[in-house]
């Protein structure tokens, strides 16, 4: 530190502009900047406030209708205990089995929905004919709540696994397709014109304008779609299943063990958050141009 200061004075001119740090240096820089702002403190304060309110309702005051719900103290002591009173904690293999089964289903459903929805959405947005051909059916099926599909899914698919994956895929597929289509339609006409002037064939326009131009919408769509995938997965697991977080929540309730029920809910929250963070991360990686343009606008 002092060496640097000394250099500056000895040179008698202003210091060279700092280069952008990379890797660990960047991490440190961001942390320093982050700790200097109010964000982390507000976040901690917010979390602390809600946990306190939760404690007050269930354990501090134990208001009527709340006394049956496990408070934060009961919850945490069971969750972290090697010998949980209500059977589920971070030490029981069953807990991980539930998480694993749900995650596996989500990954399959999400990948399937993306693999089908993105190409279909791109074609629907790009080609008037494809849109005319598919849109009425699409718009009729899309508003049907995923729970209304449950009986049909059970009739159509055998076993526990396929109907559940089908339901999650379906919900996710609609969100992905619609956003992708809107993404293509949002692309400014002048990019198509510019591509035309520069001698593009249809194929070039598709890969160089349609796909990258729709990318920001596609990733917004994927974030929504992974959310609705979790939503419908849990709903489906509650109806039919032998494992999974939705199953854990409902079966705990049926067996009157409320702690695993709440553990299941919170675990869902964390895993869901984590999964959208992954989608966001991949999106930002693929769209450096978008991230940088937003950064220039100060966002």
């Amino acid at each position, binding site marked *: 530190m002092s060496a640097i200061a000394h250099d500056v004075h000895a040179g008698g001119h202003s210091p060279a502009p700092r280069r952008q740090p990379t890797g660990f240096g960047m991490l440190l820089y961001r942390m320093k900047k982050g700790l200097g702002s109010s964000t982390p403190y507000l976040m901690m304060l917010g979390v602390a406030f809600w946990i306190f309110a939760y404690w007050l309702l269930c354990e501090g005051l134990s208001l009527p209708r709340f006394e049956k719900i496990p408070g934060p103290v009961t919850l945490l002591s069971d969750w972290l205990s090697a010998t949980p009173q209500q059977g589920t904690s971070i030490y029981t293999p069953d807990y991980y089995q539930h998480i694993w089964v749900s995650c596996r289903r989500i990954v399959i459903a999400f990948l399937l929905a993306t693999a089908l929805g993105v190409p279909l959405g791109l074609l629907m947005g790009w080609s008037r004919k494809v849109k005319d051909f598919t849109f009425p059916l699409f718009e009729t099926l899309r508003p049907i709540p995923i729970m209304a599909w449950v009986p049909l899914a059970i009739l159509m698919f055998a076993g526990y696994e396929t109907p559940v994956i089908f339901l999650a895929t379906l919900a996710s597929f609609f969100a992905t397709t619609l956003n992708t289509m809107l993404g293509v339609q949002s692309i*400014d006409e*002048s*990019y198509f*014109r*510019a*591509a*035309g*002037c*520069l*001698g*593009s*064939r249809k194929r*070039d326009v598709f890969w*160089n*304008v349609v796909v*990258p*131009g729709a*990318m920001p919408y596609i990733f917004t769509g994927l974030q929504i779609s992974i959310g609705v995938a979790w939503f419908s997965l849990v709903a489906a697991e509650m109806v039919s299943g032998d494992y999974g977080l939705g199953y854990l929540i409902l079966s705990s309730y049926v067996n009157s063990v409320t702690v695993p029920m709440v553990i299941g809910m919170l675990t869902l929250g964390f895993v869901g958050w984590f999964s959208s963070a992954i989608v966001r991360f991949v999106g930002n990686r693929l*769209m*450096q*141009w*978008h991230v*940088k*343009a937003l950064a*220039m606008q100060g966002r």
Partner: protein
Amino acid sequence: MRPDVFSPGAVAAKGAISIRNVTKIYDPDGAQVMAVDNCSMDIAPGEVCMIVGPSGCGKTTLLNAIAGFHSITEGEIILDGVQLCGPRQPLATQSADRIVVFQNGALFPWKTLAENVAYGPMVQRRWPKAECMERARTALKEAGLGAVVDKYPGEVSSGMARRAEIVRALINDPKVLLLDEPYRAMDALTKQIMHEALLEMYDRTKVTIYFITHDLEEAIFLGDKVYVMTTRPCRVKKVIDVNLPRPRDYTTLTTEAFRLLVKEADEAVHEEALKAFKAGEREMA
């Protein structure tokens, strides 16, 4: 149109645009709007042709017809003796011999400046991919953009982006460069730098330029000819020959000849603007 109708010199050179009796009627919701009426103009190869006229008079409509973005209703447009559009083919085919630089800029935001510039040659398969990139970088460097070749358009200033867009057009060796009020949103200082950069690129390529603008000083400073258009429907009202010597630079702006030309253009445009205004009043009444 048979080539032998042309004067021999015009056929041999590149980038001669002939607009013959072009009429364009828009038909939105059944109400017919005549944007261009029986308009003819002949642009010589390598000419810098500046188009001025009241807003909404049909300047962009003509540009779009040349570029092949939309069809014409009557007449024909000929480029170097080849009919681009006419009675049998109302919509011109888009091609890299006529490249447009858009008012709001249309560099692909998802490609770096170098990738943008290399795009045209790549899809036309002019050179191998690596060579396209190499030439794109060189071209950007020559235009004074060497420091930002690997930046995305969103990361550079609008002036830089617009210059890069012109580089992206010129690397394809087009016959005609079509510009639709490209510097409209820029401040006076940036504009001046853009003008000098454009003149410098023009002196190197001598491509025919069709340039729409509202700015009369810009028109006189850059142009060989200034076409003053009438209010809608669009026709040529007056052609001003700008016989100021090239190369021009900012000192040209203060000469007497320059001032007189601007005055001449101003009078013609003012008359049309007044007519447009009165027509607007009639329409409102």
